[in-house]
């Protein structure tokens, strides 16, 4: 049977009554021992009988047509089995949640590095060398590679808003800032490169891949190949990081599937690291004009965010730059505008916290500038502008602990020791400064199903095609079921990452734990109802503890209630009207202490604190790690990460991990994270909200604000590399 819930009303706090103390506890990840011993097996690590290796071939033009692929140039090489270029190839990965094939075809080239063929050979070395040797002829067309000068620019309706009169409000206000910030292209750069092994059994395809959202990926792969989704099974039990780059089916999966079918044997295609940079999603660069005006009390009267981003022709995704700005602060005169430049660059898509990750870099620095202009403490300015109702739609907010996070963070971090005037603290060559920023990330719920089986031996199994990409799904679902069924968590197993299991929402948009967790919760509620019926009490009376059921004055070991065999129940959660009736988001506050070198402009983050409230915390340990990870992404955004494009052909110049600078261990201090207790009844039946992207949202702005406080240099062009800081430092 299925226990179904459509989220049309705030839900009671059932999980506050189960009282097991399991859910929320900082338990170790159950799959941890496998991961630390190298026994967790990732996509490319299966050795199938008679498997061949494929290596993708990239386009070396920015725009045009493939005229000829000279197969003969490599076919005679040792071990080479096939050179395949097929009209079903993907131009770029599917956007997250597409559920259908993206633009297909290997003949039309839209960006430098686009996969246009795959060379398959008996071994990896043979395939790679042959792929590098393949001769390709092109008909080159003129490309648009610069978002600032692109000839085609769209203005999507959903990204435009004009409320009141922003120009007049700016003109009338005693305090105003009108500033432009830019953020660069970034790359997810998960540690595991995109990889697929395709194996056909008659009409049925099994793909061992590294993917985040299997329900959608199955549909995308089937649609790409022109086959029924019923005939596709995807397995992704372990995923070596995704961060958005593995949301949609990617070129290597389709290439492997076509090659495997053509050759009648399993084919593995692993993207080289350079191909991951060139051929999977990038985060769009942004240029953002922020306008803020405040009255004498520091209350916003105007707020504007107008941005330009870019993407390939034919992609409906555009970076939702202003996503958090809409709901975060008040101000009756508002203007939002977006331009999407159509460029011949790697496809733009979701990268960890699309929208907030870049939009808040600009907004939260501009707020720092306004605080200085208004002579207000930056925390005070933010607190004065927390709106009572959504400033555009007028709807109410669900649980929102922003002010408490700001206050708690200030207390813990020693904010009162900060001098509002920059450049006041020096230790040798180093200038020390403090900065802060708000954290906010819109909360989303997604349809989810999960199956729970309670066995007579007192063990339980929870199953869904949901993935754990490092997010803690294995730990969280296990704890949730243990909490609901009164079992120690060691007695619960979570089985994930297989499309034969009930479809989950996938890992993306921070909705995974709440959505899948709610589905598992509903399944457990169904089982509790069955147990109550067997015991002879009501579900409300039922108490489960250590494998024993009690209700009223009745009491029985679970095994006695399961004499007919295991109880199986599916939970099915569907988002409902609470999504529209409440403005829902996770909130927090970031604090950073930096040291800026007065000689070189180098910046080091010395301390960092995040205080967050995201509804019910399901596992404090994995939640903390998610926030820490996000905050480090903020450090990367603030200081080091930037994809560079050649100004002439737009190719990605720094397409490896030596020159695309993700933060290394020494870039990162011990990061402190604190959670405030919160329940969000409007979010989902387990009262939790998203946490995977909250840590990055605003984090980089706290660092850049701290740089300003340290040395008085306001960098408005991310990242704040030493050359940009240096330009504002006094002569030595």
């Amino acid at each position, binding site marked *: 049977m299925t226990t179904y819930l459509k989220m049309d009303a705030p839900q009671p706090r059932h999980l506050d009554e189960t009282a097991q103390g399991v859910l929320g506890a900082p338990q170790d990840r159950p799959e941890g021992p496998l991961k630390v011993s190298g026994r967790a097996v990732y996509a490319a690590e299966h050795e199938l009988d008679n498997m061949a290796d494929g290596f993708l071939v990239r386009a070396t033009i920015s725009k045009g047509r493939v005229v000829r692929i000279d197969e003969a140039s490599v076919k005679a090489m040792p071990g080479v089995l096939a050179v395949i270029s097929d009209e079903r190839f993907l131009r770029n990965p599917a956007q997250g949640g597409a559920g259908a094939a993206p633009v297909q075809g290997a003949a039309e080239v839209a960006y430098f590095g686009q996969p246009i063929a795959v060379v398959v050979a008996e071994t990896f070395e043979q395939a790679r060398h042959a792929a590098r040797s393949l001769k390709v002829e092109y008909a080159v067309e003129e490309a648009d590679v610069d978002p600032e000068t692109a000839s085609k620019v769209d203005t999507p309706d959903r990204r435009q808003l004009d409320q009141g009169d922003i120009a007049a409000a700016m003109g009338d206000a005693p305090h105003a800032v009108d500033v432009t910030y830019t953020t660069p292209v970034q790359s997810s750069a998960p540690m595991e490169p995109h990889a697929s092994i395709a194996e056909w059994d008659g009409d049925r395809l099994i793909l061992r891949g590294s993917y985040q959202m299997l329900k959608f990926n199955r549909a995308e792969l089937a649609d790409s190949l022109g086959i029924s989704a019923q005939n596709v099974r995807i397995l992704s039990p372990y995923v*070596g990081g995704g961060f958005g780059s593995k949301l949609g089916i990617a070129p290597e999966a389709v290439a492997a599937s076509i090659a495997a079918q053509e050759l009648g044997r399993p084919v593995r295609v692993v993207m080289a690291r350079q191909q991951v940079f060139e051929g999977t999603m990038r985060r769009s660069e942004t240029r953002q004009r922020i306008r803020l005006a405040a009255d004498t009390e520091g209350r916003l009267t105007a707020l504007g965010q107008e941005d330009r981003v870019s993407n390939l022709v034919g992609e409906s995704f555009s970076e939702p730059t202003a996503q958090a700005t809409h709901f975060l602060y008040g101000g009756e005169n508002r203007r939002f505008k977006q331009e999407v430049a159509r460029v011949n660059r790697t496809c733009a898509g979701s990268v960890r916290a699309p929208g907030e990750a870049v939009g808040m870099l600009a907004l939260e620095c501009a707020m720092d500038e306004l605080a200085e202009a208004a002579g207000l403490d930056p925390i005070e300015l933010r607190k004065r502008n927390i709106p009572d109702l959504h400033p555009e739609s007028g709807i109410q907010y669900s649980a929102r602990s922003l002010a408490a996070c700001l206050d708690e963070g200030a207390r813990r971090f020693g904010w009162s020791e900060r001098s509002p005037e920059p450049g006041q603290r020096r230790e040798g060559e180093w200038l020390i400064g403090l900065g802060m920023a708000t954290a906010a990330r819109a909360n989303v719920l997604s349809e989810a199903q999960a199956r729970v089986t309670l066995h007579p031996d007192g063990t339980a199994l929870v199953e869904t095609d949901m993935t754990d990409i*490092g*997010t803690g799904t294995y730990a969280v679902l296990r704890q949730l079921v243990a909490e609901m069924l009164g079992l120690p968590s060691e007695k619960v197993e979570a089985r994930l990452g297989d499309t034969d299991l009930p479809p989950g929402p996938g890992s993306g948009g921070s909705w995974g734990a709440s959505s899948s967790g709610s589905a598992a919760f509903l399944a457990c509620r169904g089982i509790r109802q069955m147990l109550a019926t067997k015991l002879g009490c009501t579900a409300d009376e039922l108490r489960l503890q250590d494998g024993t059921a009690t209700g009223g004055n009745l009491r029985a070991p679970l095994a006695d209630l399961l004499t007919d065999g295991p109880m199986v129940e599916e939970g099915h959660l569907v988002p409902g009207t609470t999504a529209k009736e409440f403005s829902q988001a996770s909130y927090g506050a970031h604090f950073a202490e930096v040291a800026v070198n007065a000689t070189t402009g180098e910046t080091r983050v010395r301390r960092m604190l995040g205080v967050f409230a995201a509804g019910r915390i399901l596992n404090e340990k994995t939640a903390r790690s998610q926030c*820490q*990870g996000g905050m480090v992404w903020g450090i990367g955004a603030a200081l080091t990460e930037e994809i560079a494009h050649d100004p002439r052909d737009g190719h990605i110049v720094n397409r490896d*991990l030596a020159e695309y600078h*993700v*933060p290394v261990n020494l870039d990162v201090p011990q*990061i402190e994270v604190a959670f405030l207790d919160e329940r969000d009844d409007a979010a989902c039946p387990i009262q939790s909200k998203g946490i995977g992207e909250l840590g990055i949202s605003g984090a980089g702005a706290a660092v850049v604000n701290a740089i300003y406080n340290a040395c008085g240099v306001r960098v408005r062009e991310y990242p704040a590399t030493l050359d940009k800081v240096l330009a504002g430092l006094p002569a030595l």
Partner: protein
Amino acid sequence: MEITLDINGDRQVLDLDPRTSLLDALRHHLGLTGSKKGCDHGQCGACTILVNGRRINSCLTLAAMHEDDEITTIEGIGRPGHLAPLQEGFVRHDGFQCGYCTPGQIMSATAMIEEAREGWPSYVSPSLEGDIELSDEEIAERMSGNLCRCAAYTGIVQAIREAAETREAAE
């Protein structure tokens, strides 16, 4: 060409293309997939293993160059139920999320602790001479060859600090 390798105490005879990296020999020819390929160019550290007790990037060396060497991979350090203290520390401190860089982190840290005990200085050591105290900054500098995109660096440093202290106390 025929190559004999000594891996985790076992002699393995392989027939390999001379181009085969030590990493690919482990992963694809010996089924030892604990060593990970993150970049294949020595830029991420996920493939870190020990050769004669020293940590190296196994992607940037040829299998053919390591006959007569003693090779240790993550599979030779501990297994579920019998984890090494450092591995247990990584679990307890959540020094990983997706797990892909983790074997490399652990192999790197295993050797790094010994390097510090031998008195090897680092770029952040205040003095080039004398004993090394593994402060958080020392650990971070010495572990900067192992990228973690999940950015579990806080837990990684905690797990290594604890293992180094335990190792010290055991002397």
